[in-house]
C-alpha cells in the first residue's frame, strides 16, 4: 500500500517561529510537491522537486523554502511564520514527470497565532 506520511496532523506555532513540515514517501517517487489548501481557493503549489537536491518554485513560494536531501523526504520550511500562513498543507508525490496520478499525505493543519 503506497504511502505519503506527513509528520504532524496539527501544529500551533507562534508568529515569527521557524516551522518545519516533514513529508516522507515510500514509493521511490521522483516528484514531490507541497501544496497549500484554503477554502474556496483549491490547492496552490508552493514548491516542487523532481529530483534529490532539486527544487522549483510553484505559484506561491513567498515566505517558504524547501529541502530535499534524500529521495524519500521533502521538507517545507516557514522561515518566519505569519498568521496569513495559517492553512492546511498537503504533501504529494508522483512517479513520473507526467504527474498523471499524485499520492497525497493526510495533511498538516497549521495555525499561526
Amino acid at each position, binding site marked *: 500500500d503506497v504511502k*505519503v506520511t506527513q509528520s504532524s496532523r496539527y501544529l500551533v506555532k507562534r508568529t515569527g517561529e521557524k516551522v518545519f513540515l516533514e513529508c516522507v514517501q515510500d514509493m521511490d517517487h521522483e*516528484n514531490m*510537491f507541497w501544496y497549500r489548501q484554503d477554502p*474556496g*481557493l*483549491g*490547492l*496552490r*503549489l508552493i514548491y*516542487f522537486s*523532481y529530483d534529490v537536491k532539486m527544487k*522549483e518554485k*510553484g505559484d506561491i513560494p513567498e515566505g517558504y523554502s524547501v529541502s530535499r536531501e534524500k529521495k524519500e523526504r521533502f521538507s517545507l520550511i516557514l522561515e518566519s511564520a505569519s498568521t496569513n500562513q495559517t492553512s492546511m498543507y*498537503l504533501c*504529494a508525490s508522483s512517479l513520473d*514527470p*507526467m*504527474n*498523471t*496520478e*499524485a*499520492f*497525497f*499525505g*493526510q*495533511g498538516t493543519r497549521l495555525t499561526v497565532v
Partner: protein
Amino acid sequence: AQSVAQPEDQVNVAEGNPLTVKCTYSVSGNPYLFWYVQYPNRGLQFLLKYITGDNLVKGSYGFEAEFNKSQTSFHLKKPSALVSDSALYFCAVREPLMDSNYQLIWGAGTKLIIKP
C-alpha cells in the same frame, strides 16, 4: 495558462439519486484532466483521469466522468449516490513545467452532500 472552474461550491443530492459535479476547463492543446476526492480529515485520493480515447472515463468507487470537447467540460457523475460519497471533490488539469515536468492546476473544489 491552463485553468479549471468548478461553478458550484456545494451540491446536495438525495441518497440513491444520480449525482453530477461540474468542471469546465481552459487549456491550450489537448487537455489532461483529473478528479480527486477528499474525505473529511484525510488527504486527497485520485478518482480518475482523462488523457485520450473514450469520452466516458470510469474510475474508483463507481464514479465516471464525461469529457466534452465542444463544451470544454469534464463533469463527474455517479448513477446512484451513497451517503459515504459525501466529500470535497476537486477537478484538476495538467500544466507543463520546465524539463518535461508537469504540475496540476486545481479547481476550488465542490462540497458534495448526500442526504439519507
